[in-house]
């Protein structure tokens, strides 16, 4: 999902850079305020861990393999601000050291994977956690949020590419969203398994850096939520609206649509093709909505099968 240079144009690069600088700046400020000095090296080590963990491939259907992105996993372990810092660090190193992801596209990549992927995924994780208490709820929340963050990040990625005119929205949306709905299952599954394994091995590590479930975490999410909403309003909303797009509505209002419309005789029915692609995009959106419910159910089932006893939360004392 790393966008290389040349795929997004100047205005998209500038807009995403502004959003990401604001998000990363907020995250750095929050992290500096909350982190104990003892935990500062943990950020760097968590970034190195995430990089190494992204090397581990897992099998996806059809012989292909995906790899962990890990935004939700790190956010569930360390909290949203630390997760944004960690993911930004990983993306900077991948960009400057390994040329994976572009320099001007760094803003877009940070926005998609750190702000939408990690902080957005963390918000979903906390919502599900608030509804389903206990270890079982946490595991289900990590699995569900991992899937959501992968799909959301891929949709933002298509929005940025479409805003730059690199890909057409309907085709790109259909391709990216459907592929990432599959990859997201792997991401959610492996995030949940890793989270549960860490929780069983070292329960104190899963308590988040800033202490468990501090109510102030919500106030810090508001800032990231505003940035994410702004980004989605810019990149995704103009394409996702069911209304005729701006150009069409302006054309019909000014009454010159027939000038554009009718001389195309030789073109192979472009209108129908467009309808077809629009229909595919709409079908993908409906499938996504249905898929969200199905994945939520699967996450619950997964948590139920992994965490058998409800009393596992408070380990039994020795007889």
């Amino acid at each position: 999902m790393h966008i290389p240079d040349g795929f997004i144009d100047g205005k998209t690069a500038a807009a995403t850079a502004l959003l990401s600088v604001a998000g990363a700046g907020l995250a750095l400020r929050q992290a500096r305020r909350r982190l104990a000095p003892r935990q500062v090296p943990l950020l760097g080590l968590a970034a190195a861990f995430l990089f190494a963990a992204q090397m581990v491939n897992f099998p996806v259907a059809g012989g292909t393999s995906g790899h962990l992105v890990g935004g939700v996993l790190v956010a569930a372990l360390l909290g949203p601000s630390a997760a944004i810092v960690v993911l930004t660090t990983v993306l900077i190193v991948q960009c400057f050291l390994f040329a994976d992801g572009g320099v001007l596209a760094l803003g877009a990549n940070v926005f998609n994977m750190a702000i939408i992927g990690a902080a957005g995924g963390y918000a979903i994780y906390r919502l599900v956690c608030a509804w389903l208490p206990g270890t079982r709820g946490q595991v289900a929340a990590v699995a569900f949020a991992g899937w959501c963050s992968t799909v959301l990040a891929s949709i933002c990625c298509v929005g940025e590419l479409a805003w730059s005119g690199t890909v057409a929205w309907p085709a790109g949306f259909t391709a990216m969203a459907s592929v990432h709905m599959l990859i997201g299952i792997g991401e959610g599954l492996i995030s949940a398994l890793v989270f549960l394994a860490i929780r069983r091995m070292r329960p104190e590590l899963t308590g988040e850096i800033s202490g468990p479930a501090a109510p102030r975490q919500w106030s810090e999410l508001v800032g990231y939520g505003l940035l994410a909403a702004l980004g989605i309003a810019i990149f995704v909303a103009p394409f996702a609206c069911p209304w005729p797009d701006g150009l069409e509505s302006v054309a019909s209002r000014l009454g010159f649509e027939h000038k554009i419309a009718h001389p195309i005789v030789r073109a192979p029915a472009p209108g129908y093709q467009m309808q077809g692609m629009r229909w595919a995009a709409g079908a993908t959106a409906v499938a996504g909505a249905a898929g969200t419910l199905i994945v939520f159910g699967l996450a619950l089932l997964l948590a139920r099968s992994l965490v058998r006893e409800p009393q596992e939360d408070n380990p039994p004392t020795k007889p």
Partner: protein
Amino acid sequence: MIDDWVGHLHRRRDSPISRLPAVFKLGVGLVIIVGTVLAPPQAVGWFVSAAAFLLITAVLSRIPPLFLLKRLAWLSPLILGVALVNALQPAANTLPSAARVSWMTVAAKSTICLLTIILVSNTTPFSRILRVLKAARVPGLLITTLALMHRYLFVLLEEAERMRRARASRTFTRQRGARWQTLSTVVSQLFVRASERAERIYDAMCARGWK
């Protein structure tokens, strides 16, 4: 697996390019990338001259051409993929032709930018890049995190490789469920080891007067 990544950084060797100051290299690289991204598709002159400049730099930097080609090939599947989607989409719809970008332009632009980053990253040590970022007033916490990540990246990659080898020599079944379980155990063990290492690093940093 680890060789795929560690091998992507060429052994440092002395050349006229690697002796240049890092600020200069980063600046020139940034100018080339910004210029290439902003250039209109008609500006063939810019693309050709940028490519020629990069080729001269590549020769001067004494990086083996085969290494550069391998690097480009490793990173380009995504470029080819998006170019393909772009080429296959119905031409008549979506945007007016002025706003549409042809896949040739996208492929040319991203190849030039990719080559620029590969050249800069292989002739400039990462610590020098960090020093430039520090001079550019990037917040200290981010610099510390970047430096620590770069320092322990290869340590953890080697640790992951050791764990992978140990697991491969002990696991005899290839059942799907078991595979997921072992994968997640390896990753979670890696996180636990990383956080234990972070504790030791903090103690070592304190012992050396870090505050």
